């Protein structure tokens, strides 16, 4: 076993960007305030000095323009990492992502690859209110032609970007800003990870908690609490939201016969809806109980802490719901 190191989610992200820039000359980072400001969340702090303005490009507020430019640069042989400061602003770039990045390969009959990587800060939990707290994972996961990753652990913060840059097709990476300061342990030699598979983060036999993003550590925490009560839950980190790795979560459900789906995004037409529908289709006869969902409450996220907290599943909510399912 290799040595492990402790680092924050932010450091893991940054180390990956640095490694990517060192490894491949075609790689460059572009986004609002990635350079002089140091990154809105200090993820790219210092990189401008290290790599210069050709590799770390500050761009004006023009999400459609610079995201499209990143796609164009990818078409022409570069490996751009486009940072959309937060997912909230990605609505402005969606036409570029869905009508260009996701479709050019198809429309050109297989001629044109778009190896662009688009990173976005996202998530709820910093009291940023309705326009700055969106969870658009469900949108991106709906669209064929792109790969969609959710960085739920330090291991993935360190590895997903590197793997994404190996993809000949567009990859969208969701990074959860509420986790930036969180410390975690990863192997010293951690690097690229498999970006096709979901991952069992904790084995268990009584129920499958299927989740992604901020849901992963929350679910692991809930699992520990439940363990003390003799409830043994399995935690499945979807990781790849498109294309979904159903094999892994179906196998988990086939083992536990019960599932609770956990996510911060609004419940209707969410990732959990899809997971539930797939379990319905492919593991119905394995189920002892109906699959339940614990998702974001369907309200624009309110500013005050107590209301914001109430809008998304908390550890205690997960614990309570699992108890209710297993010991009604």
């Amino acid at each position, binding site marked *: 076993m290799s040595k492990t190191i402790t680092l924050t989610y932010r450091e893991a992200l940054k180390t990956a960007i640095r490694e990517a820039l060192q490894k491949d000359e075609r790689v460059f980072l572009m986004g609002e305030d990635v350079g002089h400001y140091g990154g809105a969340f200090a993820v790219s702090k210092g990189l401008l000095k290290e790599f210069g303005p050709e590799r770390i490009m500050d761009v004006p*507020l023009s999400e459609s323009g610079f995201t499209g430019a990143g796609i164009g640069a990818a078409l022409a042989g570069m490996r751009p990492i486009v940072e959309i400061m937060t997912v909230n602003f990605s609505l402005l770039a969606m036409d570029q992502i869905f009508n260009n990045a996701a479709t050019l390969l198809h429309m050109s009959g297989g001629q044109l690859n778009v190896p662009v990587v688009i990173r976005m800060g996202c998530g709820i939990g910093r*009291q940023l209110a309705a*326009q700055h707290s969106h969870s658009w994972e469900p949108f991106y996961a709906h669209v064929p032609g792109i790969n969609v990753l959710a960085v739920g652990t330090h291991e993935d913060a360190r590895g997903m970007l590197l793997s994404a840059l190996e993809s000949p097709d567009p990859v969208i990476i969701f990074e959860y800003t509420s986790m930036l300061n969180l410390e975690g342990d990863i192997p010293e030699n951690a690097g690229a990870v498999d970006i096709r598979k979901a991952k069992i983060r904790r084995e268990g036999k009584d129920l499958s908690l299927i989740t992604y993003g901020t849901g992963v550590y929350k679910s692991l925490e809930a699992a520990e609490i439940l363990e003390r009560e003799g409830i043994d839950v399995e935690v499945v980190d979807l990781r790849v939201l498109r294309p979904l790795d159903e094999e892994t979560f179906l196998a988990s459900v086939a083992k536990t016969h019960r599932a609770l789906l956990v996510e911060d995004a609004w419940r209707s037409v969410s990732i959990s809806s899809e997971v539930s529908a797939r379990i319905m289709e492919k593991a119905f006869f394995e189920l002892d109980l109906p699959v339940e969902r614990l998702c974001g409450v369907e309200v624009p996220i*309110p500013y*005050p802490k107590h209301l914001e907290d109430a809008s998304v599943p908390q550890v205690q909510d997960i614990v309570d719901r699992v108890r209710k399912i297993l010991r009604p």
Partner: protein
Amino acid sequence: MKKTKTSKRISKAEGKRLLHQMQLIRRFEEKSAEVYTETKIRGFLHLYVGEEAVAVGVIQALDEDDYILSTYREHGHALARGMDPGAIMAEMYGKVEGCAMGRGGSMHLFDKNIHFYGGNAIVGGHLPLAVGMALASKKQGKKNVTCCFFGEGAAAEGEFHESMNLAALWDVPVLFLCENNLYAMGTALKYTHSEQQLEKKGPTYGIETATVNGMDLLEVMAATQKAVDYIRKTGKPYFLVCYTYRFRAHSMFDAELYRDKSEVEEWKKQDPILQFKKFLLEEQLITDKEIAAMEVAVEKQVQEAVDFAEKGSWEPVEDLCRYVYTETQGS
């Protein structure tokens, strides 16, 4: 484009009122920062310190019926419009007594009664709204102006272009009020715009345009008056670029790596409040004693706002799902 010269004539009462407004904004912002570090306010907090002459100078030229839209850096505009400081502070505390029931926080101040339409946190996103509101006024035969504040960073967004074009095509009474404080977060003007003189853009939409020194209250007042007169007379849009500067960080998270302290210090010499105080004293429109008294009054006002917020109440969690759909509809 025209540079506007001010007449610099003003009554004592007016002078005091304006200074009071600027000081209120300044102290309110400083207090907000304090309270933020006490973690009473959370989320983003964007302060307006240094730019007071713009909000005060522009808004004094507007009528009660005029509509105002602003950004996430809008406390100054809200105060200048006469929004209750207590309601703003309570909003930032997240209390029900806030101007938006606490739902919005610092970036989303709203008060329909005084026609203050946010507090919008998507950069550039409120420009089309402003054009639409002005269009409604036109259709309704109203004579009011819609004033839309935005930063120079916002002018790089496609929505700036679309909004300018629509407003000019439709001849609607909107004042595009660009607060050019030279930075969009940490991105300097030169990295944001290939043509840094933003005022050059107005004429290519056929929009009447002017620039003004945003650190000088009287000049802002005069320039805005001219703009508003033009809009009321013609019903057409107007583009006014105010050159200004924020003395503090972009938000509470900003380490200000992108500009030199010396640059900030240089700009502080043009502090709009100091300048206006000096002017009032020189013109003998105010006395040192009056200024001192005003400072005490402002301090009290700000403290009252904080007290009001402190005393405020939390919305019950059971009400979480309110304001998603209009309640009379019952959906």
